[in-house]
């Protein structure tokens, strides 16, 4: 039953990445993501990916983008905390 234990673990802490060049818009998205995670009681660090090769490997063409569990859920937009929360809940639902 080890796998289900791991799944349980993964369920608690989603993998959240912000893809961006470190510009003001990208930092705004990172802030929303952090606040959303904190409000949902999820103990995850937001990984801010600034390496362009990595950003491109997600197929993202407009930054900032938000990646949850390896899936691009939004790009080219600054999301509000509430919008990130909704996306997290959808990804986790």
């Amino acid at each position: 039953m080890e796998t289900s234990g791991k799944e349980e673990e993964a369920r608690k802490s989603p993998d959240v990445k912000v893809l961006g060049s470190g510009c003001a818009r990208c930092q705004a998205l990172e802030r929303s993501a952090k606040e959303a995670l904190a409000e949902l009681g999820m103990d995850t660090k937001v990984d801010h990916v600034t390496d362009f090769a990595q950003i491109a490997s997600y197929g993202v063409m407009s930054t900032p983008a938000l990646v949850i569990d390896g899936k691009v859920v939004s790009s080219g937009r600054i999301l509000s905390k509430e919008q990130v929360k909704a996306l997290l809940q959808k990804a986790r639902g």
Partner: protein
Amino acid sequence: MTGNFIQYEILGMAWLNRLIGQLLGLTGLDVSARMGASLQFFLFDSIKITVLLCVLIFVVSYIQSYFPPERSKKILGKFHGFWAACIAALLGTVTPFCSCSSIPLFMGFTSAGLPLGVTFSFLISSPMVDLGSLVLLMSIFGLKVAVAYVVLGLVVAVSGGMLIERLHMERYVEDFIKSARAVESDSPDLTQKERLIFARDQVVSTFKKVFPYILIGVGIGAVIHNWIPEAWIASVLGSRNPFGVVLATLIGVPMYADIFGTIPVAEALLTKGAQLGTVLSFMMAVTTLSLPSMTMLSKAIKPKLLGLFVGICTVGIILVGYLFNAFQYLFV
């Protein structure tokens, strides 16, 4: 008649100017004197541009939500040569763009196999011409000038891209761009509600970003409008100075401002005797090229190509300026 009404009263908001003049008059301020006239210009232009900005960004963002860059990439893959450059320049006007996205966009286009020239047509037209600037120009300079500005902007974008293509500049693109793997990404389909939310969010974030520029621009405009002698401006930027266009372009290139911040300056310069082409060159230079966007691009392309890009844009903008000056009589 109706055309004039739309131009002056709705887009130009002349009624608002009269209202502000009357309100200022009620406070005992003489709006025909310098101080009063500066204040009237400042209040009227800040309000007008802010209102136009909010309405325009909303409408434009709503349209843009139908053209994410992923979609533009797919559309462009279907065209070749000259037509690809034209479509790229046109899509550049409707695809949402910010200079911080230029590299991922560049990589996305390149990995999809789009030729370098097509990518550059897009990169030139995207900041230079957009739907918002079309309407904004219409409200201030009239329909003919706005359409001519957009058409000439597209011509610069298409010919710039084609030239870069002809010169085979591929080797001056950094390797990490060329080695980017093609990734199919579908932008999720948005519902009407999501598009409206996106448009609203864009209004809020654009407003926050450009409002200080608008105030600075309107402030400079108010000073030019009422304090700088007409003879000065006319002699530097008017028909008596054959290098006015070159000067205006070179000053505008390193400047970083939004078209919304540039418009009041342009408007004031024009009423003070600067030539139309000179003013439009200044605006194009400010919005198309800026130090932040060049710094960003310098990470993706080598100095030679960057130099060529800047050179093409600068020369193109200068040519547009002279063309407008030569045919100014058609527009005014």
